Protein backbone atom coordinates (compact mmCIF):
# COMPACT_ATOMS: atom_id res chain seq x y z
CA UNK A 1 0.00 0.00 0.00
CA UNK A 2 2.61 2.50 1.10
CA UNK A 3 4.50 2.12 -2.15
CA UNK A 4 1.69 3.74 -4.09
CA UNK A 5 1.15 6.54 -1.64
CA UNK A 6 2.79 9.85 -2.42
CA UNK A 7 2.01 10.96 1.11
CA UNK A 8 1.02 8.63 3.88
CA UNK A 9 0.28 9.19 7.54
CA UNK A 10 0.06 6.49 10.17
CA UNK A 11 -1.80 7.16 13.41
CA UNK A 12 -0.84 10.83 13.53
CA UNK A 13 -1.69 12.66 16.76
CA UNK A 14 -1.30 16.22 17.98
CA UNK A 15 -2.63 17.53 21.26
CA UNK A 16 -2.81 21.11 22.50
CA UNK A 17 -3.10 20.96 26.24
CA UNK A 18 -5.74 18.31 26.82
CA UNK A 19 -7.43 18.74 23.46
CA UNK A 20 -6.70 16.46 20.56
CA UNK A 21 -6.40 18.54 17.41
CA UNK A 22 -5.65 15.47 15.33
CA UNK A 23 -6.29 12.01 16.65
CA UNK A 24 -5.02 8.81 15.08
CA UNK A 25 -5.09 10.17 11.54
CA UNK A 26 -4.11 7.63 8.89
CA UNK A 27 -4.31 8.83 5.32
CA UNK A 28 -2.92 7.80 1.98
CA UNK A 29 -2.73 10.23 -0.89
CA UNK A 30 -2.00 8.48 -4.18
CA UNK A 31 0.46 9.93 -6.63
CA UNK A 32 -1.33 12.09 -9.18
CA UNK A 33 -4.64 12.42 -7.38
CA UNK A 34 -6.42 15.46 -6.02
CA UNK A 35 -7.30 14.53 -2.48
CA UNK A 36 -9.63 16.84 -0.61
CA UNK A 37 -9.76 17.19 3.15
CA UNK A 38 -13.04 18.47 4.46
CA UNK A 39 -14.54 18.86 7.89
CA UNK A 40 -16.34 21.37 10.06
CA UNK A 41 -14.53 24.31 11.61
CA UNK A 42 -12.11 23.25 14.29
CA UNK A 43 -11.90 19.70 12.96
CA UNK A 44 -8.11 19.97 12.92
CA UNK A 45 -7.57 20.48 9.21
CA UNK A 46 -5.06 23.27 9.53
CA UNK A 47 -3.27 21.44 12.33
CA UNK A 48 -2.97 18.38 10.11
CA UNK A 49 -1.62 20.44 7.23
CA UNK A 50 0.91 22.05 9.56
CA UNK A 51 2.00 18.62 10.76
CA UNK A 52 2.31 17.38 7.21
CA UNK A 53 4.35 20.38 6.11
CA UNK A 54 6.71 20.14 9.07
CA UNK A 55 5.64 23.32 10.86
CA UNK A 56 4.21 21.36 13.79
CA UNK A 57 5.92 18.42 15.39
CA UNK A 58 3.52 15.50 15.84
CA UNK A 59 3.10 13.97 19.29
CA UNK A 60 2.97 10.50 17.85
CA UNK A 61 2.50 8.71 14.55
CA UNK A 62 4.51 8.76 11.37
CA UNK A 63 4.49 10.60 8.05
CA UNK A 64 5.89 9.10 4.87
CA UNK A 65 6.57 11.12 1.74
CA UNK A 66 7.48 9.13 -1.39
CA UNK A 67 8.08 6.18 0.89
CA UNK A 68 10.56 8.06 3.09
CA UNK A 69 9.90 8.65 6.78
CA UNK A 70 9.70 12.42 7.13
CA UNK A 71 8.01 12.58 10.54
CA UNK A 72 10.78 14.63 12.09
CA UNK A 73 11.86 16.73 9.13
CA UNK A 74 11.70 20.52 9.19
CA UNK A 75 9.50 22.52 6.86
CA UNK A 76 12.55 23.57 4.91
CA UNK A 77 13.74 19.99 4.47
CA UNK A 78 10.28 18.88 3.34
CA UNK A 79 10.11 21.70 0.84
CA UNK A 80 13.42 20.54 -0.58
CA UNK A 81 12.01 17.04 -0.93
CA UNK A 82 9.20 18.45 -3.08
CA UNK A 83 6.32 19.11 -0.71
CA UNK A 84 5.08 22.66 -1.27
CA UNK A 85 2.53 24.37 0.90
CA UNK A 86 0.26 27.34 0.31
CA UNK A 87 -0.86 29.12 3.44
CA UNK A 88 -4.41 29.74 4.60
CA UNK A 89 -3.39 33.25 5.48
CA UNK A 90 -1.75 34.68 2.40
CA UNK A 91 1.97 34.79 2.83
CA UNK A 92 3.95 36.36 0.03
CA UNK A 93 6.88 38.76 -0.05
CA UNK A 94 4.91 42.00 0.14
CA UNK A 95 7.83 44.29 -0.67
CA UNK A 96 8.87 42.34 -3.76
CA UNK A 97 7.18 42.42 -7.14
CA UNK A 98 5.14 39.51 -8.41
CA UNK A 99 7.95 38.22 -10.60
CA UNK A 100 10.50 38.67 -7.82
CA UNK A 101 8.28 36.55 -5.60
CA UNK A 102 8.24 33.75 -8.11
CA UNK A 103 11.91 34.28 -8.98
CA UNK A 104 13.00 33.69 -5.39
CA UNK A 105 11.02 30.45 -5.38
CA UNK A 106 12.67 29.35 -8.64
CA UNK A 107 16.09 30.37 -7.38
CA UNK A 108 15.62 28.33 -4.22
CA UNK A 109 14.75 25.29 -6.29
CA UNK A 110 17.89 25.68 -8.38
CA UNK A 111 19.96 24.75 -5.36
CA UNK A 112 22.15 26.64 -2.94
CA UNK A 113 21.93 30.39 -3.14
CA UNK A 114 25.48 30.85 -1.94
CA UNK A 115 26.34 32.59 -5.18
CA UNK A 116 27.82 35.98 -4.64
CA UNK A 117 28.39 37.09 -8.21
CA UNK A 118 26.13 37.87 -11.12
CA UNK A 119 22.85 39.70 -11.33
CA UNK A 120 20.13 37.34 -10.16
CA UNK A 121 17.41 39.63 -11.50
CA UNK A 122 18.65 39.03 -15.05
CA UNK A 123 19.65 35.40 -14.75
CA UNK A 124 17.88 33.46 -17.53
CA UNK A 125 17.98 30.29 -15.46
CA UNK A 126 15.70 32.05 -12.98
CA UNK A 127 13.80 34.42 -15.22
CA UNK A 128 12.77 31.74 -17.73
CA UNK A 129 10.93 29.40 -15.38
CA UNK A 130 9.55 32.36 -13.41
CA UNK A 131 7.96 33.88 -16.52
CA UNK A 132 6.65 30.48 -17.50
CA UNK A 133 4.93 29.98 -14.14
CA UNK A 134 3.42 33.46 -14.24
CA UNK A 135 1.92 32.72 -17.66
CA UNK A 136 0.53 29.46 -16.43
CA UNK A 137 -1.09 31.05 -13.41
CA UNK A 138 -2.46 34.06 -15.29
CA UNK A 139 -0.30 36.62 -13.55
CA UNK A 140 1.93 37.56 -16.48
CA UNK A 141 0.51 41.06 -16.84
CA UNK A 142 1.09 41.79 -13.14
CA UNK A 143 4.70 40.70 -13.15
CA UNK A 144 6.26 44.04 -12.18
CA UNK A 145 3.63 45.06 -9.65
CA UNK A 146 4.42 44.88 -5.96
CA UNK A 147 2.83 41.92 -4.23
CA UNK A 148 1.33 44.32 -1.70
CA UNK A 149 -0.51 46.07 -4.53
CA UNK A 150 -2.34 43.21 -6.20
CA UNK A 151 -5.80 42.02 -5.29
CA UNK A 152 -6.47 39.36 -2.72
CA UNK A 153 -7.39 36.79 -5.34
CA UNK A 154 -4.25 37.53 -7.30
CA UNK A 155 -2.19 37.15 -4.17
CA UNK A 156 -3.68 33.68 -3.66
CA UNK A 157 -2.78 32.88 -7.25
CA UNK A 158 0.71 34.15 -6.55
CA UNK A 159 0.88 31.72 -3.63
CA UNK A 160 0.11 28.86 -5.98
CA UNK A 161 2.56 30.25 -8.52
CA UNK A 162 5.32 30.28 -5.91
CA UNK A 163 4.48 26.75 -4.88
CA UNK A 164 4.56 25.66 -8.54
CA UNK A 165 7.84 27.43 -9.11
CA UNK A 166 9.53 25.07 -6.71
CA UNK A 167 8.55 22.22 -9.05
CA UNK A 168 7.04 20.22 -6.24
CA UNK A 169 5.95 16.62 -6.38
CA UNK A 170 2.99 17.54 -4.31
CA UNK A 171 1.01 20.61 -3.27
CA UNK A 172 -0.59 21.17 0.11
CA UNK A 173 -3.31 23.74 -0.45
CA UNK A 174 -4.86 25.22 2.66
CA UNK A 175 -8.16 26.83 1.67
CA UNK A 176 -6.91 28.43 -1.53
CA UNK A 177 -10.30 30.06 -2.09
CA UNK A 178 -10.56 31.63 1.38
CA UNK A 179 -11.94 35.15 1.29
CA UNK A 180 -12.37 35.25 -2.45
CA UNK A 181 -15.25 36.61 -4.45
CA UNK A 182 -17.11 34.38 -6.90
CA UNK A 183 -15.17 35.49 -9.98
CA UNK A 184 -11.85 35.08 -8.23
CA UNK A 185 -12.85 31.67 -6.95
CA UNK A 186 -13.74 30.57 -10.44
CA UNK A 187 -10.34 31.69 -11.71
CA UNK A 188 -8.70 29.69 -8.95
CA UNK A 189 -10.79 26.60 -9.68
CA UNK A 190 -9.82 26.85 -13.34
CA UNK A 191 -6.19 27.15 -12.33
CA UNK A 192 -6.34 24.15 -10.00
CA UNK A 193 -8.27 22.12 -12.57
CA UNK A 194 -5.53 22.84 -15.11
CA UNK A 195 -2.99 21.37 -12.67
CA UNK A 196 -5.03 18.26 -12.08
CA UNK A 197 -3.34 15.10 -13.26
CA UNK A 198 -0.03 16.93 -13.35
CA UNK A 199 0.49 17.50 -9.63
CA UNK A 200 -0.55 15.52 -6.62
CA UNK A 201 -2.62 17.79 -4.42
CA UNK A 202 -4.00 17.73 -0.92
CA UNK A 203 -6.73 20.34 -0.83
CA UNK A 204 -8.34 21.71 2.31
CA UNK A 205 -11.53 23.46 1.35
CA UNK A 206 -14.84 24.55 2.82
CA UNK A 207 -16.80 24.97 -0.36
CA UNK A 208 -18.47 21.67 -1.20
CA UNK A 209 -19.07 22.46 -4.86
CA UNK A 210 -15.38 23.09 -5.37
CA UNK A 211 -14.42 19.94 -3.55
CA UNK A 212 -16.80 17.77 -5.51
CA UNK A 213 -15.67 19.40 -8.76
CA UNK A 214 -11.95 18.97 -8.21
CA UNK A 215 -11.34 16.04 -5.95
CA UNK A 216 -10.66 12.45 -6.98
CA UNK A 217 -11.03 11.33 -3.41
CA UNK A 218 -12.19 12.98 -0.21
CA UNK A 219 -11.37 12.45 3.45
CA UNK A 220 -13.63 13.80 6.16
CA UNK A 221 -12.09 15.00 9.39
CA UNK A 222 -14.29 15.47 12.46
CA UNK A 223 -12.89 16.31 15.89
CA UNK A 224 -9.43 15.35 14.69
CA UNK A 225 -10.47 11.92 13.42
CA UNK A 226 -10.90 10.71 9.86
CA UNK A 227 -14.44 9.37 9.76
CA UNK A 228 -14.52 8.50 6.07
CA UNK A 229 -12.38 8.40 2.95
CA UNK A 230 -13.63 7.70 -0.55
CA UNK A 231 -14.70 8.99 -3.92
CA UNK A 232 -17.02 12.02 -4.02
CA UNK A 233 -19.96 9.68 -4.65
CA UNK A 234 -19.09 7.50 -1.71
CA UNK A 235 -18.69 10.48 0.56
CA UNK A 236 -22.01 11.93 -0.58
CA UNK A 237 -23.66 8.64 0.18
CA UNK A 238 -21.97 8.11 3.53
CA UNK A 239 -24.53 8.52 6.28
CA UNK A 240 -22.03 9.22 9.02
CA UNK A 241 -20.62 12.08 6.98
CA UNK A 242 -24.06 13.43 6.28
CA UNK A 243 -24.86 13.43 9.96
CA UNK A 244 -21.60 14.81 11.17
CA UNK A 245 -20.98 17.36 8.55
CA UNK A 246 -23.04 17.79 5.44
CA UNK A 247 -26.34 17.79 7.29
CA UNK A 248 -25.72 20.71 9.52
CA UNK A 249 -23.37 22.69 7.33
Amino acid at each position, binding site marked *: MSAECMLETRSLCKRFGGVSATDDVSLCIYAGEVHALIGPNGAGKTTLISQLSGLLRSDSGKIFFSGEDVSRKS*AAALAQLGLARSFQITSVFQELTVI*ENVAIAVQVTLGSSFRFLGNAAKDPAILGPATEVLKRTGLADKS*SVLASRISHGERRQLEIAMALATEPKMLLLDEPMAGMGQAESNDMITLLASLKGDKTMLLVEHDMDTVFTLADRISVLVYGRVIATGSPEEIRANREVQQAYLGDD
Partner: protein
Amino acid sequence: MDNALNRSEQSKLAHHKCRSFYRRHRGSVLPGMINLLVLVALGALPVIAYLDGQIFWLDVATRLVILAIAAVSLNLVLGFCGLASFGHAAFIGIGAYAVGIPVYHETYGGFEMIAGYSGWWHLALAIAVSALFALVTGAISLRTRGVHFIMITMAFSQMMYYTLVSLQEYGADDGLSIDLRSELPLLNLDDPLHLFGLCFASLLGALLLSWTLVRSRFGKVLVAARSNEPRLKSLGVETYRYQLVAYVISGAMCGYAGALMANFTVFISPSMVEWSRSGELIFMVVFGGSAYLFGPVIGTAAFILLEYFLSRFTVYWHLPFGILLILVVLFLRGGVSGSIARLFSKRSAVSNSVSVNSTSVAEGSAPAIQGSSQARGEDTP
Protein backbone atom coordinates in the same frame (compact mmCIF):
# COMPACT_ATOMS: atom_id res chain seq x y z
CA MET B 1 7.19 28.23 19.65
CA ASP B 2 6.53 31.52 18.02
CA ASN B 3 6.01 33.97 20.82
CA ALA B 4 3.61 36.81 20.37
CA LEU B 5 6.30 39.29 21.05
CA ASN B 6 8.13 38.07 18.01
CA ARG B 7 5.00 38.36 16.04
CA SER B 8 4.45 41.95 16.98
CA GLU B 9 8.09 42.46 16.22
CA GLN B 10 7.66 40.91 12.83
CA SER B 11 4.68 43.02 12.00
CA LYS B 12 6.63 46.04 13.06
CA LEU B 13 9.53 45.01 10.94
CA ALA B 14 7.20 44.46 8.08
CA HIS B 15 6.19 48.07 8.35
CA HIS B 16 9.76 49.07 8.43
CA LYS B 17 10.60 47.30 5.20
CA CYS B 18 12.16 49.56 2.76
CA ARG B 19 11.94 49.57 -0.93
CA SER B 20 13.22 46.52 -2.57
CA PHE B 21 16.75 47.26 -3.50
CA TYR B 22 16.58 46.25 -7.09
CA ARG B 23 13.67 48.49 -7.85
CA ARG B 24 15.82 51.57 -7.70
CA HIS B 25 16.72 51.67 -11.32
CA ARG B 26 13.10 51.89 -12.38
CA GLY B 27 12.77 55.38 -10.99
CA SER B 28 14.67 58.37 -12.12
CA VAL B 29 18.41 58.20 -12.73
CA LEU B 30 18.82 61.49 -10.89
CA PRO B 31 19.34 60.00 -7.43
CA GLY B 32 22.14 57.93 -8.92
CA MET B 33 23.65 61.07 -10.38
CA ILE B 34 23.49 62.74 -6.99
CA ASN B 35 25.23 59.78 -5.40
CA LEU B 36 27.96 59.90 -8.01
CA LEU B 37 28.35 63.62 -7.47
CA VAL B 38 28.68 63.16 -3.71
CA LEU B 39 31.27 60.47 -4.26
CA VAL B 40 33.31 62.58 -6.66
CA ALA B 41 33.11 65.55 -4.32
CA LEU B 42 34.14 63.35 -1.42
CA GLY B 43 37.15 62.12 -3.37
CA ALA B 44 38.22 65.38 -4.94
CA LEU B 45 37.43 68.31 -2.62
CA PRO B 46 39.60 67.28 0.33
CA VAL B 47 42.52 66.60 -1.98
CA ILE B 48 42.13 70.00 -3.60
CA ALA B 49 41.90 71.62 -0.18
CA TYR B 50 45.01 69.74 0.90
CA LEU B 51 46.99 70.78 -2.15
CA ASP B 52 45.85 74.29 -1.35
CA GLY B 53 47.51 73.95 2.03
CA GLN B 54 44.45 73.13 4.16
CA ILE B 55 45.29 69.85 5.83
CA PHE B 56 42.31 69.97 8.15
CA TRP B 57 39.69 69.05 5.55
CA LEU B 58 41.65 66.04 4.43
CA ASP B 59 41.62 64.83 8.04
CA VAL B 60 37.86 65.31 8.25
CA ALA B 61 37.39 63.50 4.96
CA THR B 62 39.62 60.59 5.94
CA ARG B 63 37.69 60.02 9.13
CA LEU B 64 34.46 60.35 7.18
CA VAL B 65 35.49 57.81 4.58
CA ILE B 66 36.64 55.28 7.19
CA LEU B 67 33.40 55.57 9.14
CA ALA B 68 31.50 55.34 5.86
CA ILE B 69 33.08 51.92 5.25
CA ALA B 70 31.92 50.86 8.70
CA ALA B 71 28.44 52.21 7.98
CA VAL B 72 28.32 50.41 4.62
CA SER B 73 29.24 47.21 6.43
CA LEU B 74 26.54 47.75 9.04
CA ASN B 75 24.05 48.41 6.29
CA LEU B 76 24.65 44.92 4.93
CA VAL B 77 22.95 43.46 7.98
CA LEU B 78 20.79 46.38 9.10
CA GLY B 79 19.51 47.47 5.72
CA PHE B 80 19.47 44.36 3.61
CA CYS B 81 18.86 41.70 6.24
CA GLY B 82 16.71 43.90 8.46
CA LEU B 83 18.80 42.91 11.49
CA ALA B 84 19.63 45.88 13.68
CA SER B 85 23.06 45.15 15.10
CA PHE B 86 23.81 47.42 18.02
CA GLY B 87 27.35 46.19 18.42
CA HIS B 88 29.26 46.99 15.27
CA ALA B 89 31.68 49.26 17.11
CA ALA B 90 33.23 46.04 18.49
CA PHE B 91 34.53 45.22 15.02
CA ILE B 92 36.11 48.66 14.67
CA GLY B 93 37.86 48.01 17.96
CA ILE B 94 39.06 44.59 16.84
CA GLY B 95 40.39 46.02 13.59
CA ALA B 96 42.16 48.85 15.36
CA TYR B 97 43.78 46.59 17.94
CA ALA B 98 44.83 44.27 15.10
CA VAL B 99 47.08 47.11 13.99
CA GLY B 100 48.08 48.44 17.39
CA ILE B 101 49.09 45.18 19.05
CA PRO B 102 51.42 43.83 16.32
CA VAL B 103 53.10 47.24 15.99
CA TYR B 104 53.52 47.48 19.77
CA HIS B 105 55.18 44.07 19.95
CA GLU B 106 57.38 44.65 16.95
CA THR B 107 58.62 47.82 18.62
CA TYR B 108 58.92 46.64 22.21
CA GLY B 109 59.35 42.90 21.76
CA GLY B 110 57.31 39.97 22.97
CA PHE B 111 54.45 38.01 21.40
CA GLU B 112 56.51 37.42 18.25
CA MET B 113 53.85 35.28 16.70
CA ILE B 114 51.83 38.33 15.75
CA ALA B 115 54.37 41.15 15.95
CA GLY B 116 55.02 43.03 12.74
CA TYR B 117 54.74 46.29 10.80
CA SER B 118 53.36 44.82 7.60
CA GLY B 119 50.09 46.36 6.50
CA TRP B 120 49.06 43.13 4.77
CA TRP B 121 49.50 41.32 8.04
CA HIS B 122 47.50 43.96 9.93
CA LEU B 123 44.63 43.93 7.46
CA ALA B 124 44.58 40.15 7.31
CA LEU B 125 44.55 39.95 11.08
CA ALA B 126 41.82 42.58 11.35
CA ILE B 127 39.63 40.80 8.82
CA ALA B 128 40.27 37.31 10.19
CA VAL B 129 39.68 38.14 13.85
CA SER B 130 36.62 40.26 13.07
CA ALA B 131 35.19 37.51 10.91
CA LEU B 132 35.81 34.98 13.66
CA PHE B 133 34.19 37.23 16.27
CA ALA B 134 31.25 37.76 13.93
CA LEU B 135 30.96 34.03 13.33
CA VAL B 136 30.84 33.16 17.00
CA THR B 137 28.64 36.03 18.19
CA GLY B 138 26.47 35.92 15.08
CA ALA B 139 25.86 32.21 15.52
CA ILE B 140 24.31 32.97 18.90
CA SER B 141 22.71 36.35 18.16
CA LEU B 142 20.95 35.19 15.00
CA ARG B 143 18.92 32.76 17.04
CA THR B 144 17.04 35.83 18.24
CA ARG B 145 15.17 38.58 16.44
CA GLY B 146 14.04 42.12 16.99
CA VAL B 147 14.85 43.78 20.28
CA HIS B 148 16.55 40.67 21.56
CA PHE B 149 18.90 40.81 18.59
CA ILE B 150 19.61 44.48 19.26
CA MET B 151 20.39 43.77 22.90
CA ILE B 152 22.45 40.63 22.42
CA THR B 153 24.69 42.19 19.79
CA MET B 154 25.16 45.08 22.19
CA ALA B 155 26.01 42.64 24.96
CA PHE B 156 28.74 41.04 22.88
CA SER B 157 30.13 44.43 22.04
CA GLN B 158 30.18 45.29 25.75
CA MET B 159 32.11 42.09 26.37
CA MET B 160 34.64 43.21 23.79
CA TYR B 161 34.77 46.61 25.49
CA TYR B 162 35.58 45.11 28.89
CA THR B 163 38.10 42.74 27.33
CA LEU B 164 39.95 45.70 25.85
CA VAL B 165 39.70 47.58 29.16
CA SER B 166 41.35 44.63 30.88
CA LEU B 167 44.34 44.56 28.53
CA GLN B 168 46.80 46.20 30.92
CA GLU B 169 49.73 45.77 28.57
CA TYR B 170 48.00 47.81 25.90
CA GLY B 171 47.03 50.69 28.14
CA ALA B 172 43.72 49.34 29.48
CA ASP B 173 41.26 52.25 29.83
CA ASP B 174 43.71 54.83 28.59
CA GLY B 175 44.48 53.13 25.32
CA LEU B 176 47.73 52.99 23.45
CA SER B 177 49.55 55.25 21.03
CA ILE B 178 50.71 53.53 17.88
CA ASP B 179 54.30 54.43 17.09
CA LEU B 180 54.35 53.43 13.45
CA ARG B 181 51.68 53.11 10.79
CA SER B 182 51.18 49.95 8.76
CA GLU B 183 53.72 49.40 6.02
CA LEU B 184 52.30 48.80 2.57
CA PRO B 185 54.04 48.58 -0.81
CA LEU B 186 54.00 51.80 -2.85
CA LEU B 187 52.15 53.62 -0.09
CA ASN B 188 53.43 55.73 2.75
CA LEU B 189 50.57 56.02 5.19
CA ASP B 190 52.33 58.80 7.06
CA ASP B 191 51.51 60.92 4.04
CA PRO B 192 47.90 62.07 4.63
CA LEU B 193 47.25 61.99 0.90
CA HIS B 194 48.31 58.35 0.62
CA LEU B 195 46.25 57.41 3.64
CA PHE B 196 43.20 59.17 2.26
CA GLY B 197 43.71 57.52 -1.11
CA LEU B 198 43.81 54.08 0.49
CA CYS B 199 40.69 54.80 2.54
CA PHE B 200 38.78 56.21 -0.40
CA ALA B 201 39.69 53.28 -2.63
CA SER B 202 38.61 50.97 0.18
CA LEU B 203 35.27 52.74 0.38
CA LEU B 204 34.78 52.23 -3.35
CA GLY B 205 35.68 48.59 -2.85
CA ALA B 206 33.21 48.24 0.01
CA LEU B 207 30.45 49.81 -2.07
CA LEU B 208 31.27 47.56 -5.00
CA LEU B 209 31.24 44.51 -2.76
CA SER B 210 27.84 45.43 -1.28
CA TRP B 211 26.44 46.14 -4.71
CA THR B 212 27.64 42.79 -6.02
CA LEU B 213 26.32 40.93 -3.01
CA VAL B 214 22.93 42.56 -3.02
CA ARG B 215 22.16 41.83 -6.66
CA SER B 216 23.45 38.26 -6.46
CA ARG B 217 21.37 35.22 -5.61
CA PHE B 218 22.77 35.44 -2.11
CA GLY B 219 21.50 39.00 -1.78
CA LYS B 220 18.05 38.06 -3.05
CA VAL B 221 17.74 35.52 -0.28
CA LEU B 222 18.68 38.15 2.32
CA VAL B 223 16.14 40.66 1.02
CA ALA B 224 13.43 38.03 0.77
CA ALA B 225 14.17 36.89 4.33
CA ARG B 226 13.85 40.47 5.52
CA SER B 227 10.52 40.71 3.79
CA ASN B 228 8.98 37.45 4.99
CA GLU B 229 11.28 35.02 6.71
CA PRO B 230 8.76 32.27 7.57
CA ARG B 231 7.68 32.12 3.93
CA LEU B 232 11.24 31.80 2.73
CA LYS B 233 11.84 29.02 5.23
CA SER B 234 8.78 27.21 3.96
CA LEU B 235 10.33 27.41 0.50
CA GLY B 236 13.17 25.36 1.85
CA VAL B 237 15.78 28.01 2.64
CA GLU B 238 17.79 27.77 5.84
CA THR B 239 17.79 31.55 6.24
CA TYR B 240 20.01 31.34 9.32
CA ARG B 241 23.06 30.28 7.30
CA TYR B 242 22.68 33.10 4.81
CA GLN B 243 22.22 35.68 7.52
CA LEU B 244 25.22 34.33 9.37
CA VAL B 245 27.39 34.60 6.27
CA ALA B 246 26.15 38.16 5.72
CA TYR B 247 26.92 38.95 9.35
CA VAL B 248 30.45 37.57 9.00
CA ILE B 249 31.08 39.54 5.79
CA SER B 250 29.74 42.65 7.48
CA GLY B 251 31.89 42.13 10.55
CA ALA B 252 35.02 41.53 8.49
CA MET B 253 34.39 44.69 6.46
CA CYS B 254 33.88 46.68 9.64
CA GLY B 255 37.08 45.24 11.11
CA TYR B 256 38.93 46.38 8.00
CA ALA B 257 37.58 49.88 8.63
CA GLY B 258 38.89 49.61 12.18
CA ALA B 259 42.39 48.82 10.89
CA LEU B 260 42.24 51.95 8.74
CA MET B 261 40.97 53.92 11.72
CA ALA B 262 44.00 52.87 13.80
CA ASN B 263 46.27 54.08 11.02
CA PHE B 264 44.41 57.35 10.92
CA THR B 265 44.26 58.16 14.63
CA VAL B 266 47.53 56.33 15.53
CA PHE B 267 45.79 55.69 18.81
CA ILE B 268 43.67 52.83 20.01
CA SER B 269 41.47 52.68 23.07
CA PRO B 270 38.46 50.80 24.40
CA SER B 271 36.36 53.94 23.91
CA MET B 272 36.21 52.97 20.22
CA VAL B 273 33.88 50.17 21.34
CA GLU B 274 31.56 52.15 23.63
CA TRP B 275 27.91 51.40 22.92
CA SER B 276 27.26 54.99 21.90
CA ARG B 277 29.71 54.46 19.01
CA SER B 278 27.48 51.67 17.77
CA GLY B 279 24.52 54.00 18.20
CA GLU B 280 26.22 56.60 16.03
CA LEU B 281 26.86 54.01 13.33
CA ILE B 282 23.17 53.13 13.34
CA PHE B 283 22.35 56.81 13.04
CA MET B 284 24.60 57.11 10.00
CA VAL B 285 22.89 54.21 8.28
CA VAL B 286 19.34 55.21 9.13
CA PHE B 287 19.85 58.90 8.46
CA GLY B 288 21.35 58.20 5.06
CA GLY B 289 18.71 55.60 4.29
CA SER B 290 19.10 51.95 5.14
CA ALA B 291 18.44 49.56 2.26
CA TYR B 292 19.97 52.06 -0.09
CA LEU B 293 23.44 51.11 -1.23
CA PHE B 294 24.72 54.66 -0.97
CA GLY B 295 22.65 55.70 2.04
CA PRO B 296 25.33 55.02 4.67
CA VAL B 297 27.83 57.23 2.84
CA ILE B 298 25.41 60.15 2.85
CA GLY B 299 24.53 59.45 6.47
CA THR B 300 28.17 59.38 7.53
CA ALA B 301 28.88 62.60 5.66
CA ALA B 302 25.93 64.22 7.39
CA PHE B 303 27.07 62.96 10.77
CA ILE B 304 30.66 64.13 10.42
CA LEU B 305 29.74 67.53 9.01
CA LEU B 306 27.04 68.07 11.62
CA GLU B 307 29.45 67.13 14.35
CA TYR B 308 32.02 69.52 12.94
CA PHE B 309 29.78 72.52 12.36
CA LEU B 310 27.60 72.13 15.41
CA SER B 311 30.58 71.71 17.69
CA ARG B 312 32.14 74.84 16.24
CA PHE B 313 28.91 76.70 16.81
CA THR B 314 28.38 75.64 20.41
CA VAL B 315 29.94 73.44 23.07
CA TYR B 316 26.41 72.21 23.63
CA TRP B 317 26.27 70.72 20.15
CA HIS B 318 24.80 67.48 21.43
CA LEU B 319 21.53 69.31 22.04
CA PRO B 320 20.82 70.33 18.43
CA PHE B 321 22.22 67.00 17.32
CA GLY B 322 19.88 65.11 19.60
CA ILE B 323 16.93 67.18 18.44
CA LEU B 324 17.89 66.51 14.86
CA LEU B 325 18.03 62.79 15.57
CA ILE B 326 14.49 62.89 16.93
CA LEU B 327 13.28 64.91 13.97
CA VAL B 328 14.89 62.46 11.57
CA VAL B 329 13.03 59.60 13.21
CA LEU B 330 9.73 61.45 13.23
CA PHE B 331 9.81 63.01 9.80
CA LEU B 332 12.51 61.62 7.52
CA ARG B 333 11.23 58.20 6.58
CA GLY B 334 13.68 56.14 4.56
CA GLY B 335 16.46 58.57 5.34
CA VAL B 336 17.96 61.08 2.96
CA SER B 337 18.21 58.55 0.14
CA GLY B 338 14.56 57.64 0.55
CA SER B 339 13.57 61.29 0.46
CA ILE B 340 15.63 61.93 -2.65
CA ALA B 341 14.17 58.86 -4.36
CA ARG B 342 10.66 59.98 -3.44
CA LEU B 343 11.27 63.50 -4.65
CA PHE B 344 12.48 62.41 -8.04
CA SER B 345 10.10 59.58 -8.63
CA LYS B 346 7.24 62.02 -7.97
CA ARG B 347 8.50 64.30 -10.70
CA SER B 348 8.93 61.64 -13.30
CA ALA B 349 5.65 59.99 -12.40
CA VAL B 350 3.69 62.10 -14.85
CA SER B 351 5.45 60.80 -17.90
CA ASN B 352 6.10 57.23 -16.94
CA SER B 353 3.53 54.77 -15.78
CA VAL B 354 6.08 52.46 -14.23
CA SER B 355 7.35 55.17 -12.00
CA VAL B 356 3.83 55.97 -10.90
CA ASN B 357 4.02 52.58 -9.35
CA SER B 358 7.46 53.24 -8.07
CA THR B 359 6.25 56.49 -6.50
CA SER B 360 3.57 54.69 -4.66
CA VAL B 361 6.22 52.24 -3.61
CA ALA B 362 8.34 54.94 -2.14
CA GLU B 363 5.41 56.41 -0.28
CA GLY B 364 3.43 53.35 0.43
CA SER B 365 5.96 50.78 1.36
CA ALA B 366 6.69 51.32 4.87
CA PRO B 367 9.28 53.89 5.69
CA ALA B 368 6.83 56.59 4.72
CA ILE B 369 3.98 55.26 6.75
CA GLN B 370 5.45 53.43 9.68
CA GLY B 371 3.32 55.33 12.14
CA SER B 372 -0.02 54.69 10.56
CA SER B 373 0.80 51.68 8.47
CA GLN B 374 -1.75 49.45 10.09
CA ALA B 375 -4.48 51.75 8.98
CA ARG B 376 -3.12 52.18 5.52
CA GLY B 377 -1.54 48.84 4.80
CA GLU B 378 -4.63 47.17 3.47
CA ASP B 379 -6.53 49.89 1.69
CA THR B 380 -4.54 49.70 -1.49
CA PRO B 381 -6.62 49.70 -4.64
